[in-house]
């Protein structure tokens, strides 16, 4: 609620360095940021609840207190809102009993009216309150039965449980994708700020005041937004839970793989969280230059289709035979193909000579950037394809369809994107689909061959802002026989390449911008390609 214009300044590599005194020791920290981030930069973690690096500072949880020495003596301040200044003297709990007690007191107050139902809470294991309690909490409870709890909740949803205790609303359906548990809410205000300042559509608000405060939508409205599942990420407790993930997995059972969401050319950085060979959820992965910590619902929920309608591995000989047919061949490279796939295609096209041409993308319309985590272009790797000289689009192919005798769709669902536009391609007699999915295009093809989905391959892509980003393979392939697209294409060209690192090296031969890098050296947050290579 308070000043919603104060976005935190985050330190960068270029931040000026200042010296401050922390617990009696001089340390050098980034100078253009807040104390919490500065301390984090030198390895001192400060527990916090309401602070989020990509949300305006609201300063209401009071968990990140540190002690500072000023002209009027020592005072407790919140480190998330205090800018770093040269020569500041800071005490953390390591040297100050007062800070330790204050943080313990805040931790106690935070948990006072919070239901301690961690064993059945979906957030358990990744809950900020749990982490803070371990770090800064008290070990004994001072809340006695005679005193009782005062659960937060909408008066309309409150109810008496079997022990006669008034409880807040559980499992409140506040939107099509989210359940709200009112009594678990600690009124940190993060979801309100996310909807207001990031999503730009204020749909949540804290109602009433004092210990009757509860989170709610506006009367008669639901929480419904393309980014609404991000509130489950920013929620430090189990108050906001996603319906699709509710009671599916304990979070500590999940392993995660860092990769890129290949449904948009911004290339949102994501974690694929999987267990037992299944992806259970997709979480945003922080990348300050790309999607910060946000991903759209479309990117987040796309995983539900990854393992469905898969093509089985086909016969390589049948593919070779189909490609050997007379006439010109049109290759259509789908937007989710990696640079390695493009390099393999380039190798194959060079081998086939002048009778092969490459087109990229499908007939899916190109939208506009939403300023959060989507550029609107469904051809995720368009900039990467341009490095290999692949710029002609599926629309171009549709105009010249009659020239070709063979159509090879590579993970490109032409008929699925726009069947009416794809009708022009039906004049091409010989149609091949090499794809992960048994989609509309595969059904229109005479020869099909199954490959790995992008979530199951390692590789690289170049996003719309010329940032080279790395995909890692999640071990969720439904069939061990499936291979990545690039190795199938290399096999068609008569080469055996199964590792993305080698394929990336080959990509460097065609795209000089990539030659300077090695696959393993690509940073998890990407590498900015210099110059005008990628448009």
């Amino acid at each position: 609620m308070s000043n919603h214009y104060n976005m935190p300044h985050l330190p960068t590599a270029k931040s000026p360095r200042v010296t401050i005194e922390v617990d009696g020791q001089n340390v050098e920290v980034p100078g253009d940021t807040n104390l919490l981030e500065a301390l984090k930069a030198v390895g001192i973690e400060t527990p916090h609840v309401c602070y989020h690096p990509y949300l305006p500072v609201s300063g209401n949880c009071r968990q990140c207190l540190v002690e500072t020495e000023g002209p009027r003596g020592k005072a407790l301040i919140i480190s998330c809102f205090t800018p770093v200044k040269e020569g500041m003297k800071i005490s953390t709990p390591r040297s100050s009993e007062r800070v330790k007690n204050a943080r313990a007191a805040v931790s106690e107050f935070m948990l006072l009216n919070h239901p301690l139902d961690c064993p059945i809470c979906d957030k358990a294991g990744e809950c900020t309150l749990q982490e803070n309690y371990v770090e800064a909490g008290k070990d004994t409870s001072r809340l006695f039965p005679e005193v009782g709890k005062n659960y937060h909740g909408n008066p309309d949803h409150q109810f008496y449980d079997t022990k006669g205790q008034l409880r807040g609303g559980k499992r409140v359906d506040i939107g099509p994708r989210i359940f709200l548990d009112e009594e678990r809410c600690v009124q940190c205000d993060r979801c309100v700020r996310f909807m207001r300042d990031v999503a730009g559509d204020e749909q949540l608000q804290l109602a009433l005041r004092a210990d009757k405060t509860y989170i709610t939508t506006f009367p008669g409205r639901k929480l419904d937004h393309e980014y609404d599942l991000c509130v489950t990420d920013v929620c430090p407790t189990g108050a906001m839970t996603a319906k699709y993930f509710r009671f599916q997995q304990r979070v500590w059972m999940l392993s995660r793989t860092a990769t890129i969401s290949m449904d948009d050319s911004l290339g949102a950085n994501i974690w694929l969280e999987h267990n037992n060979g299944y992806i259970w959820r997709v979480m945003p992965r922080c990348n300050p230059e790309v999607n910060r910590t946000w991903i759209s619902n479309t990117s987040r929920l796309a995983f539900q289709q990854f393992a469905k309608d898969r093509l089985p591995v086909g016969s390589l000989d049948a593919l070779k035979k189909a490609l050997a047919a007379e006439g010109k061949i049109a290759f259509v490279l789908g937007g989710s193909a990696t640079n390695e796939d493009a390099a393999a295609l380039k190798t194959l096209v060079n081998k086939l000579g002048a009778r092969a041409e490459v087109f990229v993308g499908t007939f899916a319309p190109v939208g506009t950037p939403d300023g959060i985590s989507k550029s609107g272009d469904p051809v995720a790797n368009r900039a990467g394809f341009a490095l290999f000289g692949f710029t002609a689009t599926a629309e171009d192919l549709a105009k010249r369809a009659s020239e070709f005798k063979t159509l090879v769709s590579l993970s490109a669902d032409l008929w699925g994107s726009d069947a009416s536009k794809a009708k022009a391609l039906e004049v091409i007699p010989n149609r091949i689909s090499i794809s992960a999915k048994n989609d509309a295009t595969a059904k229109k093809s005479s020869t099909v061959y199954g490959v790995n989905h992008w979530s199951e391959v390692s590789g690289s892509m170049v996003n719309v802002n010329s940032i080279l980003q790395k995909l890692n393979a999640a071990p969720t392939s439904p069939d061990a026989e499936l291979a990545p697209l690039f190795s199938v294409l290399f096999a068609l060209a008569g080469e055996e390449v199964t590792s993305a690192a080698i394929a990336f090296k080959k990509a460097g031969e065609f795209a000089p911008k990539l030659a300077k890098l090695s696959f393993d050296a690509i940073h998890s947050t990407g590498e900015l390609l210099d110059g005008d290579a990628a448009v």
Partner: protein
Amino acid sequence: MQDSMKVCTGNFGKHAQSIEAYKKLGGYSTISKSLFEMSQFEVIDRVQRAGLRGRGGAGFPTGMKWSFVPRNTGKPVYIVVNADEGEGGTYKDHFLLLEDPHRLIEGLIIAGWALGARTAYIYARGEFLPCIESVNKALNEAYAAGYLGENIMGTKFSFDIFVHRGAGAYICGEETALINSLEGQKGQPRLKPPFPAVAGAWASPTCVNNVETIMSLPWIFSHPVEEYTKMGTPRAHGTKVFCVSGDVKRPGLYEAPLGTPLMEMLTSEEYCQGIIGNLKGVIPGGSSCPPLLPEECENATLDYECMASLKTMFGSGAIIVFNDTHNAVDILDVLGHFYSHESCGQCTPCREGTGFAKRVLDSILRGEGHDGDIELLQGISAGFGGTTICPLSISLGGPLNVYTRKYRADFEEYIAKNPNHAEPRLRPTVRLGAYW
């Protein structure tokens, strides 16, 4: 005290609500050419020389506060009058607005000239309907008489005053919460900096002053500065309006010079005329101030420094007297209920802690207290210290700590009513039933 020396309440009981009556009593004499011939800095300098301190509770020098307001920012300067009087025991603004609204308008014109402001808001508590009516009537008269509006007294100075009705939240007396409320947002204090003097209402420089502060200005500008500084103590000049309530023979609103002995206020014929029963304690400045024991009252004087030295606050001048028929647990429970109800719900310690303290006090009152509850209350109080955006948590934290120390016997007596008070408490068992 003579009426002529009363800075704020001189017109009380003289039907000064109408502009004719007010002018007959010497009103609007300061709104003249001589005021507008003074530069803004001379006006501020005069207030600084008079040593006027904010009457809302903190006692910050008004002239200094005004000098913090930046000039030439390209944004308008707003003056906001804080008439959101909600502190327990305080009722001075209510009567000041009701009895003498024109003095407020006169003071605001002086303040507006000093700050170069075009617009002033009177943020009145929502329940003050008669006062709002009285002020609105006075505003209409002042507009008609040419004291407000465009080009006042033929000068280039134009000034407008608007009355804004609050929705009745105690916390909106905190200046940044007041500004939020004025802007139409939820009344919750803002993080500082920026301070309101730099970026307040609509991110413009804003000066928030108490009603009594503004109403002191006409007197200061119509009398020599020395006459004002003569009153009061060397560090706090002038007079203060005290609202005395509780166990005294004649409770009411009294204006007295700062530094008046507390016992004189309570016992003299001019003021309260004596205490009923045996004095048990005095809350010197409104419900958030820790109380004074009778022996502390003996030498206490009513000014900021003396009260600070006694580890309490001068506050808004609301003196609440209670005798030994009252129990400290009851008083503290009332405070617990009030502050837990009025917490804005922003900071964790205040939002959850004030309710926690209230529930502990309730359990003691129900006869379910245990040994150790006093320490628990003091522990809760310690958790409030300096950990929140605004001082509301300390408004309960201070009394929690001091009442349990000074009137420990009362608490022990109540706790002893529980036959099992010395037995170890049952630890709450975490056993959650099926509740969905």
